[in-house]
């Protein structure tokens, strides 16, 4: 195998790994925050408007961690800086 093949193979593998691991944590966190929010709405239905607003903001903040992993995967796949060392 020449250098280019190794880099491409490792890139594809690590992009998949990045999305897999980077999606796992935020998914757990999203589920946990949603269940906590449902608990508190069931206990205090009159506060549901403010709970939902905070929940959406928090969920978008949690989700952005998965988005960072996605951006890293995109950089590995489409804008790989290491290929420049091999392809002159």
């Amino acid at each position, binding site marked *: 195998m020449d250098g280019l093949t190794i880099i491409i193979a490792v890139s594809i593998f690590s992009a998949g790994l990045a999305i897999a691991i980077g999606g796992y944590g935020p998914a757990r966190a999203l589920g946990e925050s949603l269940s906590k929010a449902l608990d508190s709405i069931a206990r205090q239905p009159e506060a549901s408007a403010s709970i939902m607003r905070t929940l*959406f*903001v928090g969920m*978008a*903040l949690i*989700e*952005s961690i998965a*988005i*960072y992993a*996605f*951006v890293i995967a*995109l950089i590995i796949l*489409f*804008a790989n800086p290491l290929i420049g060392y091999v392809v002159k």
Partner: protein
Amino acid sequence: MKTLSVFPEKVFSIGPVQVTDTVITTWFVMALVIAICALFTRRLSIQPSTGQEILEGIFEAIETTVRDVLPIDPWLVIPVLGTIWILIGFSNLVGILPMVKTPTADLNTTFAFAVLSYSMTHVFGIATQGLKGYLSHYKEPTWILFPFHLIAEVTRTVALAIRLFGNMLSGDMIAFILLGIVGFLIPVPFNLLHIVIGIIQAYIFGVLTLVFIAGGIRSQP
């Protein structure tokens, strides 16, 4: 057919300045916003028409949100923050038109918005407490944490840009990949989800900017 691309494509260039498709779409969005506002505010009345009522609803939502968070006069912040808010919202939603690439799925656009939000934080902080009072919050609680304050300034701005960019790009990309795999009707629910995500991300961007501004002016006694 639109190709799957992370980078903007050059359409034509004026001298050394390259005009990409993102620029054209953004100008189209700006024209659209101005046209809608001009159309609906032409005949203002006490008994509002439907268009005027929609605009008043959006406007009141912005004003209430800003008034709840900021301890200073909200009218210092609303003109620029509301403009960013509405422009990002329209930019996120314009991508669902066929053959139009979402302008916020380009890292240059989102970085421009993030730099604007970064400078607003400092401008409003200095304007409310003066240069010395504003700089003094960097040495809280001790001088040792000063480098971490600087790192936080940079990372939260970059995170703001990458969050919007990644969300919009992933929406486009999911639609594109599903269109290649299954084609008919399956991408529709994902596009509906993309509309919701677009509105929420515009809201998040504005709220985070608002929170950063409030953090910059917070030590007002």
